[in-house]
């Protein structure tokens, strides 16, 4: 076993273990932390596959930004795990049955007989100065320009939808008005009081 293969198996094991922890933990914060581990492990696998840019993006975007926000939300919400788990045992047999069927199908189809090395040869290794960021960039705005623009519109819709659904005008909320704060004069805030000196 080459060292690279060894690394792959270690990362794959960590990934699968972390992923199963995500769905079995009772505490959602623990699940989220294991999800971060799963992201890191899969970004390692991507590095092995020479997709360096995607690997670093996965860590930066998902671990750095998305999961932090996610943890933030989880800690702000008071999630009652007991009610969520109330119907769990009742649907468990059906779920396990479905899972076994899916896993069997997956093993049957996505196995070496259909996707083995003799069907798809391993890709050639790229030279050390090969930049897959440049490769991605060169197709992103040419071949995939149209899908790229559509994806941008989807992000815009997400912003509009999120603001539209959550922004409420509450008259009772206190907020600061920067314009007023900046324009304030000394006379508005400070009142000089002439006091007589105390005698005695």
């Amino acid at each position, binding site marked *: 076993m080459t060292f690279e293969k060894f690394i792959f198996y270690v990362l794959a094991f960590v990934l699968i273990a972390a992923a199963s922890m995500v769905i079995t933990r009772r505490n959602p914060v623990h699940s989220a932390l294991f999800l971060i581990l799963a992201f890191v492990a899969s970004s390692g696998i991507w590095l092995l596959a020479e997709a360096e840019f995607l690997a670093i993006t996965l860590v930066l975007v998902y671990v750095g930004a998305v999961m932090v926000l996610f943890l933030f939300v989880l800690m702000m919400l008071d999630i009652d795990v007991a009610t969520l788990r109330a119907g769990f045992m009742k649907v468990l047999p059906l779920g396990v049955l479905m899972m076994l069927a899916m896993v069997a199908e997956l093993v049957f189809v996505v196995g070496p007989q259909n996707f083995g090395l003799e*069907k798809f040869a391993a890709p050639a290794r790229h030279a050390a100065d090969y930049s897959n960021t440049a490769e991605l960039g060169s197709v992103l705005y040419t071949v995939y320009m149209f899908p790229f623009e559509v994806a941008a519109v989807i992000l815009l819709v997400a912003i509009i939808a999120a603001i539209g659904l959550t922004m409420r005008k509450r008259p009772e909320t206190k907020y600061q008005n920067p314009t007023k704060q900046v324009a304030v004069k000394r006379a508005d805030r400070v009142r000089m009081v002439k006091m007589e000196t105390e005698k005695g």
Partner: protein
Amino acid sequence: MHFDSSILIPVLPEIFVLTLACIVLVVDLFLKDEQRIITYGITQIGLIFAAVITLAVVQPDAQIVFDGSYVRDAMSDVLKVAIYLVSFVAFLYAKDYLKDRGLFKGEFYTLGLFAVLGMSIMVSANSFLVIYLGLELLALSLYALVAFNRDSKQGAEAAMKYFILGALASGMLLYGISMIYGATGTIRFDELSTALASPDLNNMVLVFGLVFVVVGLAFKFGAVPFHMWVPDVYHGAPTAVTLFIGSATKIAAFALAVRILKDGLGELLMPGGWEGWQGMLILLAILSMGVGNLIAIAQTNIKRMLAYSTISHVGFILLGILAGTQEGYTAAMFYTLVYAIMSLGGFGMVIAMSRKGFEAESLDDYKGLSHRSPWFAAMMLLLMFSMAGVPPTVGFFAKLFVLDAVVSVDLTWVALVGVFFSIIGAFYYIRIIKLMYFDKPLDDSPLTAGMDTRIVLSLNGLSVLALGMFPAGLLSICTAAFAG
């Protein structure tokens, strides 16, 4: 690198709708609440312009631009114009409803236009990537629209269900797409059909991917057994949004199915009998017609009833697609367009019957409508007869063409099942007519719908009759869409 700007011409409708949506978004920021009618006006005029532009860029031949991402052909022209016009009518009906409930805000039109853009992109997609992005654009806008009435618990619940099941369906679709990509090495529909024609392909992986793709499609269509979200979403969403989801998006769902199943995976119609998508679609169609029609009978809420009726109509649309012939696709397209018109009218009536502080959602609210407003009772009569498939309304011809296409590919038993279930389905449509004409009204207040709604609703009802008398025009448009 050279950029040929003439490739932008076929994409003009999408560019226009996107610009329109952004203009509406910005203009609306500067309007006061009482000026909101301007947002509405810009949206409506824009949609008409979008339809005109679509017609203006029509070319006799199909054009594939943006390195195979985008296709403009006869089918996309027809479906886009239909989507723009149906959305126009849906927004028109929605206006008074939104005004009465304090929901008359710019976001409705912004999100609505983005949904229209998403549908347009789906109609013109030539690769799995683009069709998926179009679908997500549509779905994301719709999730927000379903939850548009933030004070309604039902709306929030419906949006949540829609969101989770929609995400699940997208996951299925993507997984299937990845399998198909693994087997063929392409995601472009035109390349896919050539790749599939080669004999040394791995059928097992393809069929596995196909199953997931069809399941994803069925979720989006709302076909049984993936229909659970339909009644809840139709019921929980504001009627103005239900109207939009029930009409325009069905056209997009049809485009989604045809692009993927015909343009992309047409070669997989039936490799070895039931293994291809025909067998799966037969199951979906029969279950949809059966479950949709039977459960609709038990409903007392008209929005839920129309939701189950949608499921049964989806069964009929799938029936046309599964024939897999040019005749079948034409019939399915005819059915989809007709269904969009009928659904607009049906939900339009629900809106016209409602007023401030009162939702005409119960079937009992339709009792004695003929005393309160004989004209609108007559319109509802036409729409219900058309949904049931009674001649001379156009619903009859829509069903007839679909059944004819199915019989001509020797699936007579499927056609018979379809007829059987539509006879059962006729019961609940005709029950509404009985309530309107033979029962005493619960309240005698006249309808309060505005003049624009009245006029368009009348045209909508009459169009069902007119198209039924002269179906040849619409049929020839549909035939031309799949010719050659």
